[in-house]
């Protein structure tokens, strides 16, 4: 292995990306009649300012987080951070020392630094909530959603690159999947490879779930549907195991989402091929109707039923968006219901991670993920998974 990073053919203008995102957020604030936006979520801080802190576990990330304040007048944002070198200069951001919002003193400092006007926040520590009680903070999800829903060309390129790194690491890993190997060892290989390929870390503990052949034979399910994902263990793989794979990394804070199904030992039989083909047919049927103006309900209708069930998991979705969060709007096929799905109207720049699950209870199934961006007249694929092992060349 080498630490030669991948080269990318698409162009990426980081400065333009930062400026365009900030402009969209400023417009969205006006649209929501908000004056001030306080951001604590690190994906949102990145979106608004380009500032990204090093990857870490949640508790560490909360401690070190950067905080951003965006105002509807379009002036440069304020970023409070211990890492000023991580704030791009493109917006002329006002960079100030880190505030510790886990404690009353830091919360009071932020309160005192905020401009007047109608305020929205994405998340709150308890001390900040108490400090801002007089300001009656609104929920920021409306403004954030409006800005983030459709991606700029540069954002799409970041997702493409994240996915390309993830796919390259997996391709090199496939040779290591064998009877006797453990999931934790596989994770070690995977994380090493993504780091060498220039990624900064894994954003989710990689999932290599060995699927029981039926729902009843698997772990307890609170929904009665298939359980996925479960946490990777040191259980060695056995020949013939059907493994549902799910990994995620990021590039410039934009998430990849890789899914596939492996058969350990490579003995792929007619049943596995049939499941894979049904999955591909389901994705094709959804993509057939994927274009601006189509609704989420159109997508779920196109997905139909396979083996007598909706071809996705009851507790998840047929499709989700991705960006600076691994799963963000639009969501399609969730427990928010058909009316909600019908309210999702596709528009150019929206990203959809299609993740149907084909489940043939008693005979296992197939799951993969296909990422697209909606274009003016259809879609572009941002992921490039291969299915040759299943006898499919596409």
């Amino acid at each position, binding site marked *: 292995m080498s*630490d030669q990073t991948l080269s990318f053919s698409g162009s990426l203008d980081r400065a333009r990306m930062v400026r365009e995102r900030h402009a969209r957020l400023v417009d969205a604030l006006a649209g929501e009649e908000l004056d001030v936006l306080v951001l*604590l979520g*690190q*994906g949102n801080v990145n979106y608004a300012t380009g500032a990204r802190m*090093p*990857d*870490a*576990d*949640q*508790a*560490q*990330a*909360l*401690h070190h987080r950067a905080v951003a304040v965006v105002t509807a007048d379009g002036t440069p944002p304020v970023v409070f951070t211990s890492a000023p070198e991580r704030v791009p200069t493109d917006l002329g951001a006002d960079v100030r020392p880190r505030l*510790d919002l*886990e*404690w009353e003193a830091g919360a009071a400092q932020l309160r005192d630094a905020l401009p007047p006007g109608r305020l*929205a*926040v*994405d*998340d*709150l*520590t*308890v*001390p900040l*909530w*108490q400090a801002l009680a007089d300001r009656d*903070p609104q*929920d*920021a999800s409306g403004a954030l959603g409006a800005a983030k829903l459709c991606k700029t060309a540069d954002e799409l390129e970041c997702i493409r690159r994240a996915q390309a790194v993830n796919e390259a690491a997996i391709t090199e890993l496939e040779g290591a999947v064998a009877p006797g190997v*453990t999931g*934790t060892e596989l994770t*070690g*290989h995977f*994380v*090493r*490879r993504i*780091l*060498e390929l220039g990624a900064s*870390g*894994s*954003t*989710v*503990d*990689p999932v290599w779930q060995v699927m029981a052949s039926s729902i009843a034979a698997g*772990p*307890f*399910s*609170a929904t009665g549907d298939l*359980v996925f*994902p*479960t*946490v*990777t263990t*040191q259980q060695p793989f056995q020949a013939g195991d059907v493994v549902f794979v799910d990994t995620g990394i990021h590039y410039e804070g934009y998430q990849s989402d890789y899914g596939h199904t492996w058969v350990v030992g490579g003995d792929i039989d007619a049943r596995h091929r049939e499941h894979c083909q049904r999955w591909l047919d389901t994705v094709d049927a959804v993509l057939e109707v994927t274009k601006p103006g189509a609704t989420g309900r159109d997508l779920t209708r196109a997905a139909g039923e396979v083996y007598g069930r909706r071809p996705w998991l009851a*507790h998840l*979705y047929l499709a989700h968006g991705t960006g600076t969060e*691994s799963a963000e709007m639009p969501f399609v096929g*969730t*427990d928010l219901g058909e009316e909600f799905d019908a309210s999702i109207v596709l528009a150019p720049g929206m990203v959809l991670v299609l993740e149907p699950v084909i489940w043939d209870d008693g005979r296992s199934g197939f799951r993969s993920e296909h990422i697209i961006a909606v274009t003016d007249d259809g879609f572009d694929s941002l992921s490039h998974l291969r299915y040759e092992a299943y006898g499919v060349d596409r």
Partner: protein
Amino acid sequence: MASTAEHQTRTRAAMADAGVDVLLLGREGNARYVSGANRLWLAGTRPFAPSCVLVGETGAVHLLSVTDDGVPPEIPTARLYPISWNPLNLAAAAAAATAGTTVRRVAVDGISPLFAGLLHGVFPDAELVDGESLLRAVRRVKTRDDVSAIRAAVGVADAAFQAVVATAGPGVSAATLAGVFAQRMGELGVTTPAFAPVITVAADRVAARVGVLLDGWAGILARTWPGGEPLAAAVAGAVGAVRPGVPVAELGDDTVTVDGVGLGHEELIGADVLEAGMVLFVGVERDGGCWGDTVLVTETGAEVLTSG
């Protein structure tokens, strides 16, 4: 599991002292402390949502999980509630967990305007209060089992770090060394980092700060070589001052950082006073180098848990 039972006893005692009837937890370290559950690890921050409920009166723990995989058997499956994309359902699940009990005071470890509204709706007569500071205080002094778990995590961090030392050499990049750490962790059966390895290579000098989470518990160390001796001396000086009764601010000069260690990072401020059973990461970062150890506060001083 003995440890989780003790965590629950301590937490319920703190709840009783504070008049808190129910705890709603969104932070994974807090949820793991009171539930013992091993849920899928995700990097970074995420907005508050109640993913674990502890009812003070009954001691019942309810958990956001679609399965009992990774959930201790002490939590019956009837107390698992699945993920929902409708936040109202999560607020309703939290309220359902308290059915039949009196709820006057609800403690949360984070909040959002959305959930402040929803929780007010499902607990109309209750006051929302600070659960994060409550758990911060409860978690700070470790049980015997907690310390054993941290020792095991430190052992993994030490062992994976040795692979970095063995690999470092002319022409070996920081990315490769970070990768070697991750790979060795995986071979040792651990896939969750405390943070992505922070490694720099300048000429032949390597500075590495690494940390793992084993069963959620953190083990962290930082080393610089060659020429790390002055950094090591600064850390040793700070560690030499560690003993019960000493305020955190009095450990070393302002190049020394002191963080709490437990189920991941734990918050400490300078005014906090050390007690036996606390676990700290004591580190320095300067001149492009770093050094640091995971340290147990003992009755008489400190025990450095890291080797290497």
